[in-house]
């Protein structure tokens, strides 16, 4: 993300005031912004302008947010940040399961917005650069050697724990839904076996966190999923 190649962000949002605010904010940060006031225009802008990231409001007048997410995913792998109102909790999770990368609940602060966008753009960079080592705070994950360290000391974790952790590392800073984790680690037939996830995430927390009841790295988003905190975020 150097200044020469400013990331292009597409905002799909029907409320003009929110759009204006977002645009001012993002332009101040040096990002380029294009806007769409409905899902249809948004989708055609993705095809014509190929933006680096999409901010998608879930309450669009023409197409519902989940369908937009699905169609966006068919078109490209670009990061999607959904904006949801409090009354759309269920839609938010559905959008995440449909392929959105993270969410923000309205109203949100500019700080939160920037943190999410940074994490999303970093995720893209990581996939491009094929990351070998992930580091956040005192936690280091050596992806090539499948080894985990806390403050330089190796922590022994089981294969399932490692798989969970590696998925979270791949999405560092972003939320990963229960469904996503269950599907990737245990397979589609286990997507409802939430207790598997609880047990193994608990084990991971006890191995990696000083106080598992107030985790520094492995944060729970109740009702949604888990998030591995990425220290560069702030």
């Amino acid at each position: 993300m150097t200044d020469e190649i400013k990331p292009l962000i597409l905002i799909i949002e029907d409320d003009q005031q929110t759009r204006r605010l977002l645009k001012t904010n993002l332009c101040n940060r040096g990002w380029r912004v294009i806007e769409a006031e409905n899902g249809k225009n948004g989708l055609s802008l993705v095809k014509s302008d190929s933006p680096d990231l999409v901010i998608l409001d879930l309450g669009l007048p023409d197409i519902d947010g989940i369908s937009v997410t699905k169609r966006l995913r068919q078109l490209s792998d670009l990061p999607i940040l959904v904006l949801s109102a409090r009354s759309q909790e269920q839609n938010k999770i559905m959008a995440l399961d449909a392929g959105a990368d993270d969410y923000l609940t309205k109203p949100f602060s500019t700080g939160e917005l920037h943190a999410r966008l940074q994490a999303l753009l970093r995720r893209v960079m990581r996939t491009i650069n094929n990351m070998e080592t992930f580091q956040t705070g005192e936690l280091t994950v050596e992806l090539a050697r499948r080894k985990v360290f806390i403050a330089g000391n190796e922590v022994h974790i089981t294969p399932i724990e490692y798989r969970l952790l590696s998925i979270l590392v791949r999405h560092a800073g972003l939320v990963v839904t229960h469904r996503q984790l269950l599907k990737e680690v245990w397979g589609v037939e286990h997507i409802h076996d939430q207790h598997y996830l609880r047990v193994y995430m608990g084990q991971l927390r006890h191995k990696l966190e000083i106080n598992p009841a107030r985790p520094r790295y492995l944060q729970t988003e109740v009702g949604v999923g888990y998030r591995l905190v990425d220290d560069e975020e702030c």
Partner: protein
Amino acid sequence: MRKNEPESEQDIQLYEMMLNRRRWDRLQGYMAGITVPFICTLIDWPLRHVLGPASILMTYLLGVFLVASRYGRGASIIASLLSAPVFAFYFASPIFSFAISDLENIIGLGVMIVVANVTSNFLERVQLQAEISKQRENRANALYRLSQALSDAHNQQSVAGIAVSHIYDDFGALSVLLFPDQEFQLHYPSDIPLEHSLRGVDLQIAQQTYQQHTAKQTSKSTGPIAYYPLERSQTIQGVLAIESPAGADLASPELITFFDTFLNLISQTLERLNLTEKANNANLQAETESLRNALLSAISHDLRTPLTRIIGAGTALVENNADFSAEEKLDFNRVILDEAQRMSELTSKMLDMARLTAGEIILHQEWNALEEIVGSALNRLEKNIGTRPIRTLLPDHLPLLWIDAVLVEQVLTNLIENAIKYTPAGSPIDISAELSASNLTVNVSDYGFGIPQGMEEKVFDKFYRLESESHQGGVGLGLTLCRAIIEAHGGTIQAANQYGKGASFIINLPIHEPPTLNCFEEMAS
């Protein structure tokens, strides 16, 4: 009333067996009535020279008495009437003739017949009385059992179930209770028919019974059905339809009274339930009404205060922008941000309340770890917590809980938020958990001033706010919601003051058998 249409083959067999036995009993009586005099004769014959005719007569009397006591009047009359000629023939001179010359013997025979008759009459009355008192006892017992069962009934369906099964037990008749709907139309119960439920009822006649408040009867090919209004003091609760009408088959008025008492008990229970329901509805309505009013006034007050400040700061910035220094402008902006954030918090709280108080709480229960929920609640409140020490004392290896994580997180968030709001800055907050055989106890304690004595229950009341906190934002529904959520989970929540500490909120959640993990490590590799 008897069971007049035996249904199954087994019933028919049983019924025939009963009839056969009664016939057999009567036959046996007659046989005894015939044979006993001859047995007496056989016994007395060898002794005829030793015993006088008076003693011999006594043996016949004994025989007749025994027959009377065992087989009743009919048999004893046969026995006494037969004893007379047999005695005359064998023992009263002249022997081997039915003539009796001796006056003494004639008198003796006469006395015997009278005594036999009187005793058998007497015995029969005693037996009848015993039977009646036994029947009365049975009925008293039946009524007692019915009233006992009905006192536990909590709705129409359970009353119907109890009534139908007791009617079957005590009258041997199938029956059904029909209740009116909103438009006063009677309907068959919509749930699964009961075991002894009567089918094939004429709803039209039932409807007439319901409207005219009078009992009706039909005699259909399937057997007569009687319809009784279930009413008390002019209000009618429904109709009882029962096969084989009381009255047609009833011999005694006593049975009719018994049945009436039965009906009365059922009607009474239905009336009681009806009145309770009405009272509850009225209460609920009044409560919702006052809730709505209180909520409206609280909301308008709590939203207006920050709005006034926002509008004030906003207009100042827009209208007199040039007059302010950069620092002053920043100050105004801070006011706007702070107040907007307060409003945002308030509106989201109100949304939660609206959702939860709108109806019963719908739980999306899943297996969840308490540790995660505590962690998430603390993370959510990070800004409010600041540098305040939070001590989490959760034992390792807590079982998973079958709970709605979003709602339980809301409870913890509310409790921690309250602790932060109402205790001095920097004082610690403890969150601990303890496991017992069937419960998990979660404790959120602070080191503030505690809850005023005697207010430990009051704080859960709707719109209750401590005097000292009236300057704080909030509508006084937080703890009410906490309690509603925890109780929906089958748990309890209480407030207490802890010695040397401040207030303490104790949540008890039931433990369920957690599912097994049938996927082991080897699956992943």
